């Protein structure tokens, strides 16, 4: 490549770089600067507030929700992916599952929350049906609107997302390896334990981390479902920005957002390290 063509290649990238600047870099910098400010002056007050009891409690809930829903999504999603991957590429089952996963992985937020409320809420379809036929009350005291409900609803978009990100890794496992292992006298257990397992583990963990970050930053679903106690960080940020009771916490919102950026950055760094490790197998 001579110098001129390299320059035109950069030029072609320019719109994308501008887009990144305006919608990713600039907001992130604003958040980082705002986290250390109050009324335009440098201060550590808001960063210190991140270590108060309430914020730590919320951080804990956020991490639990993200971790559990990522784990549920990763395990169940991996099973489903395995079923898909063992089918021939042209099979109807495979095409249907991948297409449906593509849609459902993006089916989050307000419609999803309302779908669950309409199904499992106090007067939801399933709740009413079970109440009138079996006399069973599955609604209880509103678990759907607390942490258990959030885990259930989040899993709904985590499983299909797992299918999408984990399928290429499973497809990378060649049948010849299995044949070779069997020829050398390996049992099925040994094959999974010694060959496929170690190869898939980084991809599996990497996908799980991606799911974790996906749940960690989700906001709209929780905003519809939970209106008390601001149990997760995105909701606490909303409260800091819009509260009509506690005023002047805009910069605390910046600090909270900064905390989220740090957590996601750590997770994504781990993810990229794992991907680097697995990409060797997928050539």
């Amino acid at each position: 490549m001579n110098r001129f063509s390299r320059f035109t290649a950069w030029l072609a990238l320019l719109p994308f770089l501008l887009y990144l600047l305006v919608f990713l870099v600039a907001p992130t910098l604003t958040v980082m600067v705002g986290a250390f400010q109050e009324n335009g002056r440098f201060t550590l007050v808001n960063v210190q507030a991140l270590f108060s009891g309430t914020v730590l409690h919320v951080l804990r809930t956020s991490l639990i929700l993200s971790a559990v829903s990522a784990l549920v999504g990763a395990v169940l999603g991996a099973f489903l992916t395995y079923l898909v991957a063992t089918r021939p590429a042209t099979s109807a089952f495979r095409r249907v599952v991948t297409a449906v996963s593509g849609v459902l992985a993006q089916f989050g937020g307000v419609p999803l929350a309302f779908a669950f409320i309409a199904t499992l809420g106090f007067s939801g379809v399933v709740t009413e049906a079970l109440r009138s036929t079996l006399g069973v009350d599955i609604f209880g005291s509103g678990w759907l609107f607390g942490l258990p409900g959030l885990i259930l609803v989040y899993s709904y978009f985590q499983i299909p997302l797992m299918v999408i990100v984990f399928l290429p890794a499973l497809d990378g496992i060649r049948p010849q390896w299995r044949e070779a292992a069997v020829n050398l006298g390996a049992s099925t257990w040994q094959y999974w334990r010694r060959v496929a397992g170690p190869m898939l583990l980084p991809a599996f963990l990497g996908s799980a981390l991606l799911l974790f970050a996906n749940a960690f930053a989700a906001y709209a679903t929780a905003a519809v479902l939970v209106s008390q106690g601001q149990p997760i960080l995105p909701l606490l940020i909303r409260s800091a920005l819009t509260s009509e009771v506690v005023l002047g916490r805009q910069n605390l919102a910046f600090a909270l957002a900064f905390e989220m950026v740090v957590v996601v950055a750590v997770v994504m760094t781990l993810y990229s390290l794992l991907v680097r490790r697995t990409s060797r197998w997928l050539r």
Partner: protein
Amino acid sequence: MAKSSLRVSLVAGLGVMVLAACAPPSDNGGSDSGSGGGSDAKTATSAADLGGMDGLVKAAKKEGELNVIALPPDWANYANIIKGFSAKYGIKVNSAQPDAASQDEINAAKSLKGTTRAPDVFDLGQSVALANTSMFADYKVSTWDDVPADFKDENGAWINDYGGYMSIGYDSSKVPDVTGVDDLLGKEFKGKVALNGDPTTAGAAFSGVMMASLASGGSADDIAPGVDFFGKLKKAGNFLPVDPTSATIESGQTPVVIDWDYLNAAESKKLDSWKVVVPDNAVIAGYYYQAVNADAPHPAAARLWEEYLYSDEGQNGWLGGGARPVRADAMVKAGTIDKAAYDALPPVNGQAVTPTVAQTEKATTYLTANWAKTVG
């Protein structure tokens, strides 16, 4: 990393420039703000400054539009009040973000400052109003003297508009009759009691916890018993962490709602079995605050809107929504109040308590530290 950090800072610098280029242009004459009434209206502190009501109406009609924000149609009858104002003066009302919170109104005024889309008037909760008086234009409506001194700013920066008492609304077809706060701990209320919002965010919910505190032996100085009450409610499995709306009430998802009596009363019109009770000796009163944006893009229309709200017609409008208008006493004396609507308000027994700013701040500190732990 060192190699790329310079690149990042260059890139960031560019980004800031790009953002600056995207800033909204300051508005010059987008909607006839130049000649005539506009400039006088901006500084008018009463209708008299514009040559009386006729002058004000003329200037407002010339502007032709009014921006309001955070006025839900089913809140204190705002849908009909807006309709009435539009019909009377032929001014188009642009209602933005009907479900926004008070702080959103202030944020919008700041971020849209100088554009034709900025809100002209505010309807705010106590804390937000008193923290932002520098953004309000001093204006005294013609019925100013009817309003008791405690309910207005002496210079006219703000004036209370309507208020009510904290109440418990319940669907009598789903739960037994409620007489007081403690009834809600009964097992018939499992998973059925909702509070309108989170008390660290929404003023109505804050007053709801205050009411529970009064009923549980606390006072306006001590909100802790109220928080403990909701803790007990949660332990009993009765507390439903859903944000109640007209939709959740009508579909039966929130059979019991703690909210302002005028909001609960509005639901009774839609749902026959919906009853409202103000608990005895736990009467928390709360008034909202009305103010004109000092940077209103339609200064004359903003002031005319205030005049309309504080006219008999506007006050009866709020009353029609179950809210208690601030001029109610004067209007009862003058015989201009809508008697039927006034008599239909839920009865109140006991001395009404209006928390002071200091008491509110004290309670806020306690809530911030303890609410999420108690119900989370």
